[in-house]
Each structure stands twice: as C-alpha cells, then as structure tokens.
C-alpha cells in the first residue's frame, strides 16, 4: 500500500509489508464476495435452461392403433420428429439376418425394441450425422438402398431398424425413452 502524502507513515512504510491480522480480513472479505458472486451466477445460468412450460411438454402420448405393418408415422416430440414404424415380418426377418460384424454401430433389433414388441420400431427422426430428417417414414418417400431411411442431406442410409448401413452418419437413429401405456398408446419421453 502506498504511503499517503500529508499523513503520518503507516507501520507498513516503516517496517515493510508482513502478514498482518488485517490481511486476514482482506482475504475473508474477498472470499465472501467470491462466494456471493458464485451464488448469484447459478440463477443467471439456470434461467437459460428450458422453462417449466417447455419441460411440461417433454413427454407426449402417441396413438399407434391405425398403423399397418410396413407403415410409419411421424410424431413431433420436443421439437423433433419421432418415427414410429411397424415392421413387416419380412423386414424383421431381413434385419435379424444381418451379422453384427457388418454394422458400424452394432445393435440387434431386440436391443432396439421393447420385449415382445419387436414390430414397433421407434426412433428419433434425426440423422446422427448433422441433424437432418431422413426420408422413408411417409408413404412414397425414398427408403434408401436398405429399405429403411435415407437422409437426403449427405446420403446416409439406414435399414428398417434405423441402423446406419452406409454414408457418413456415425450412429444408428437414436431410440428415445418410451413405454407402452396400452397396446395402442405409447408414451414418449
């Protein structure tokens, strides 16, 4: 601390700086202020997280009673599409025959569906490459070379189980958290 012109020299000026009881007060004050600032930071960060009204829409229920084998529907969930696809027995058979060693992201159909519900293939409709929506859920869309989904942005091709088979995407289509509320209603999220 500088000496003050016009005033008597402080003990610091005379003896030089050494640890004093006052230093403890400075450190304690600084620590208290830092703790306060950190506490204030929590709500400032938290307010940018999804608000309660957004979180309230975090799970939805979808009616799947009208979907015939071979058909799929798109359901909006958290601002993204969910593909609910009812596989035909032929598709299930074809998917099960693919050896895991051929897959980039090895998963069996059973691992990607609920027990006893292997025909219900529910995935996020978001390409794991850069987030485009693959084609193949709606009637008449290009299902790609593996009969599942085809992403038009960069050419990733998925099989009917939503597994990546070709193209730049690194992972299979994500399976969201879901549960069957009844044989015809599924709760997603």
């Amino acid at each position, binding site marked *: 601390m500088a000496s003050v012109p016009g005033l008597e020299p402080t*003990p610091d000026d005379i003896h030089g700086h050494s640890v004093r009881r006052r230093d403890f007060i400075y450190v304690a004050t600084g620590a208290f202020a830092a703790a306060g600032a950190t506490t204030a930071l929590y709500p400032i960060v938290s307010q940018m997280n999804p608000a309660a009204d957004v979180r309230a829409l975090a799970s939805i229920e979808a009616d799947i009673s009208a979907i015939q084998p071979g058909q799929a529907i798109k359901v909006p969930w958290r601002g993204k599409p969910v593909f609910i696809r009812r596989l035909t027995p032929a598709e299930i058979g074809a998917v099960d025959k693919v050896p895991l060693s051929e897959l980039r992201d090895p998963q069996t159909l059973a691992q990607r569906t609920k027990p006893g519900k292997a025909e219900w293939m529910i995935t996020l409709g978001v390409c794991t490459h850069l987030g485009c929506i693959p084609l193949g859920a709606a009637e008449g869309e290009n299902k790609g070379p593996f009969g599942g989904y085809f992403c038009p942005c960069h050419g990733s091709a998925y099989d009917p189980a939503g597994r990546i088979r070709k193209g730049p995407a690194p992972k299979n289509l994500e399976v969201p958290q879901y549960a069957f509320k009844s044989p015809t209603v599924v709760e997603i999220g």
Partner: protein
Amino acid sequence: MSFSWSEPYKPEGKLWRYLDDRLPIPRMIWDSVGGGYPVPKNLNYAWNFGALAGVALAVQILSGIILAMHYDGSAANAFQSVEHIMRDVNFGWMFRYIHANGASFFFIVVYIHIFRGLYYGSYKEPRELVWMLGVVILLLMMATAFMGYVLPWGQMSYWGATVITGLFSAIPIIGTSLQQWLLGGFSADTPTISRFFALHYILPFVILGTVVLKVWALHLPGSNNPLGIDVKGPQDTIPFHPYFTSKDGFTLVLYFMLFAIVVFFAPNMFGEVDNYIQANPLSTPAHIVPEWYLLPFYAILRSFTVDLFFIPAKLWGVLAMGSAILLLLFMPWLDGSPVRSNKFRPINRFFFFVLVVDIAILGVCGGKPAAEPWVRIAQLASAYYFAHFLIILPIVSRVERPLPVPRSISEAVLEKYSKLGSSIGSARGSMSAGAAVAPMPAE
C-alpha cells in the same frame, strides 16, 4: 489525475508493463478509482450514493438483458410472457422482481445523490457540467423507466402509455399527430410496445455513456466535499483506493441487504395491483398513478386546472412539469452565492429543507385522486416549488452573508478531531491528534 500529488501508476512486473504500453486499462482504473485518484478526506456517507447509483444501473442492465431473453413484445403476448417469466422461467420471478424493484432503488439512490448535490453546492463552479450531465441522466432514467413500465402491458402500463403520450397532444397544432407518431397508431398497441421495448433496451446504454462522461468531467476538479471548499494540497486528500473503495463496499453491502429484503419479502411494495390485470383499451382503472418516483412531477402536471393567458390548462401542466425538471439545469446560475456548502448558509439551508418537504408533499398529492383538498395542496406546493428556484434561491443566495468558511479541509478536520481527541484523550489517556486524524489500515 487532476492533482499534481496524485500517486502515479507504476506497473509492476513484465505483464503489467507490456499491457501499460499497449492497452493501459490498469492505468485508467488506477487513475480513476484507484490509488491515483485523490479524494477530499472529509467526505461523509452522502458521497456514497454515486457509486451506489452505478451499481444500481449495472443491476438493471444485467437483469434487464435476462428478462429480454424471455419477454415477447407484442400486444397479444406481452402480458402472458411476463406471467410466463413469473411462473415458468427458472428464477424468472427473481429477475423480474430484481428489475422492477431495482428501478425504485435506482431512483431512491439517485434522488439522495441529487439532494446531496443540492445541499453541498456540488452544482457550482467548476462542476456545472457534472451537474448538468446528471440532470440529463435523470431525464433519460425517467424516459427509460416509463417505457419499461409499459412493457408488461397491464392496465397501468396501457393507461400510463396513453396518458404520458397524451401530454404531447397538448402541444398546439402538431400535438395530435405527434402523439400518433409516438404511439405508431391511433392508440397504444403492438407498434407502441415494439418501439418502447427497443428504446427501453438501448437507453440504459446511453445512460451508461453519459455516466462515463459525467465521471470524466468530475475527475478534473475532483469531488466536492461537505465543507464545499477547494482542495488546497495533499494534506486535504486521501487516495480513492483503499479508503473509498472499502467505504463504498461497506454501503454496497448494506444496499444489497435492503434490496434483498424488498425483492424477497415485499416485492410488490412499490407496484400497483392494477398492473396485474391485462391491458384493456375499453376500460380505464378508477385511479391511475405513475410509479412513485414520478409522483411529484405528476402532481405539478395536474395542478393546472384553468386556462391562463390564452394557454389551455392542459398545455400549462405539460410546460410546468417539463420546466420543473429542466430548471435544475440552471442551478449553477440561479444560486449566486460564492459559498457552496449549506453548512455555512443557514438561511439557504432552511429553504433547502423547506424544498425537500415541499417535494415530499407534491409526491403525496401526486399519489392521491385528483380531488379536493389534494388539488389545492398540490397547487400551493407547485407554486412554492417554482418560487424556490426562481425567487427565493436567487435572492437568498445573493443577499445572505455566509458564515466564515475554514481555510482548508485539513485545518477543519484537525480542529474537529483535536476537540474530539481531547475529550477522548481525557477519558482514555493520551492520544495524539495526528493519530485520531489519520486512522490507518494497519494494526
């Protein structure tokens, strides 16, 4: 900065020297709020409110930016989006209460700051521009606060916007078109909210810029002091840091404590319940009032009830309200006394306190319905307000013979503490006057 004895900035270490040669921010801080800014050593706690006002502005800007992230500025959604902030957004209720009450606290601090300036003659030469920039800040604050109050789109918001823009319709010939220009329509609606929101967002940064100019202008002559006499030499000052940083820090803690009490336990204390009703263009609330900090000026506005000299009462009110604030700009010249501080001007001091009471009365009247006896009281108080600035102050300041003024700050301080010191000394044994004058931050 301004004083030859101010402690020069000495960068210690390679990094600080490197920075000092290229981007001397540490030097600027040192010279403006550090050890390089000498401040009169006799400042009392009234001088803490400038720094508090700066903090209040920072709190408003920060909480305001957060609210703007969640607010929807359209007539259809504004009210609901504020309820969304209150109910859904994480800690949204806290930020809204901080922002709404922060405005009131900002005005409390600024009004105390203004009354301090008035009492101790801080507006007088050589600080006229510091004072006038302060009046500009006050006007900007009022405009910002008014537009912010419109944004929640409650009943008070809507009718406040209608009434205040209606003031401009009092101007002859162009009045009505001017009001429509301000509102962006025939009545307040989405265009009004959008422009008020845009201006409410940008004006605080204009205030911030004006604050920078004001502090810059202040640092040339340095702070005024309770004695109102000029600093004569190094014996009259102490460095801003650590003495006033720690003193300001202390009042800042007290300020935040008071603020927290209101925000968390009485958040609607300053508010009007009617603003929790969504704006309804077809129905005016029975009793509409502005926020408390505008009440004295609102009372002046309403005091003109009859046409005078071919000028309609409505225009008189608007002119009077505007001049009530603009009068402050002329304080440096209305006050003709050679002495700044009212400590040495007993007659002027008496009228200063009468003015404070008068403004308080105006504030009370502004919050009451426009009916007797409040209208008559407000008229008398308004008349006195103008009489103070235009008649009493110019005459008293030129006629009154001030009490003898101390030759220097340090002389006055030494005298005060030698009296204190001798009385303490007789009770507690020996204590030198010097030690009493210079409490040092050491054991």
